[in-house]
């Protein structure tokens, strides 16, 4: 099994939020926290990403964008919702245009609460996402092998 967990690449998308979590996420890459120690790369391209890190809630306008970005990411992939807004819609939840958290449109795997979420919590969330990413990758590989040998799982 390939050790994919050493190379988690993020796609960071900021939905309806106050930008607090957005900034905290970027803070993870600064010298103080240095998420690149774990091989994290903040890529801007869904085709190259493994972990979809979403901050802020879903509104009527970004719904289709989030859906499409998720679809463009190649399998295996993991979704991390960072901050209260991404988890539930947060303080904006009752606004006329807000649909709720990220799980309203795509399957969310890891929830990182906080308003704003702290970098330590975000990194912790990423580490958990990485484990899941590894598991999914292993399954994916097995399935590929199975298909090659004619088995069906």
């Amino acid at each position, binding site marked *: 099994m390939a050790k994919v967990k050493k190379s988690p690449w993020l796609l960071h998308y900021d939905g309806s939020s106050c930008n607090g979590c957005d900034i905290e996420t970027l803070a993870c890459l600064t*010298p103080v926290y*240095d998420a690149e120690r774990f091989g994290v790369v903040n890529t801007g391209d869904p085709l190259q990403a493994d972990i979809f890190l979403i901050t802020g809630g879903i509104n009527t306008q970004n719904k289709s964008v989030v859906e499409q970005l998720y679809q463009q990411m190649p399998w295996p992939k993991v979704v991390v919702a960072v901050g209260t807004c991404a988890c539930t819609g947060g303080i904006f939840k009752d606004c006329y245009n807000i649909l709720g958290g990220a799980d309203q449109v795509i399957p969310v795997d890891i929830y990182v609460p906080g308003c704003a979420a702290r970098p330590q919590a975000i990194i912790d969330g990423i580490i958990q996402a990485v484990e899941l990413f590894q598991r999914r990758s292993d399954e994916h590989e097995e399935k590929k092998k199975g298909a090659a040998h004619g088995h069906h799982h």
Partner: protein
Amino acid sequence: MIEKIIGVAAYILLAQLVGGLLDGLDRKISARMQGRVGPPLLQPFYDVRKLFAKQIVGVINSSQAAMLYSYLLLMVFSGCIFFAGNDILMSVFVLSTASLFLYFTAVITGSPYNSIAASRELIQIMTYEPAVILACVGFYMASGTFNVSGIIHSDMVMITRLPGFFIAFVFILTIKMRKSPFDVSTSHHAHQELVKGVTTEMGARNLAIYTVAEWYEVVYLLGFVALFVINQQWWSFVLAVVVILAVYFLEILIDNSSARVKYGAMLKWTWAMTLLAAGVNLLILMLIR
């Protein structure tokens, strides 16, 4: 003949290793320059391994991948010509053909970011090509042959005769290695204006292929740098390694301390530099010959 085979085999087998290690070193040193710990030295290999493990994706149709594979194979082929000790000018021509296939890879998708990046890639090719061709001419004038094996068999250190060509070549190396300030088509940095430039529409395996091709290219280019130093003396090989590492470090330093320029500035500066450094050197060589 045996030398040629060894050269080719070594390039095909080792270039990925060396290229990947240098890439890791680059990321480590860059991180240190920015006051970070940085990823492990082997991170680039982890990345490529992961990319191969993922689902194979593409956009439009299979011709994108076909162009990309052609890029990789032509890249390796041009390196093989070089490391087999054959004609350097021919090798450079094949190299530019390989670069064109990278352009095709990007432009064929018809996606906006990728198309702009492709056009810029083409501008980059136009920008650096004169310096590369002139470097070959310089080697020919100093050693009397275009053959790489002939050049390293001459008894002088080329750089003493070709300092201008060397400066011009190192200058364009910044473009070739996609370093700031000349990374106008694709950058290794996380955030840039064109998303991921020419690699925007490459995911998973395609990106892995691209990365490996880039490693081959870097090793080839550094081999070119070494050619300025190597002759038959043992110390010249040591010196070559030192020069390569120094040049590589210089590129990292420039990358981390400069902002991206516009393509116009890139073109003007590079051509001016090529004309000044390589042109004047060429003139002097012709006069003293």
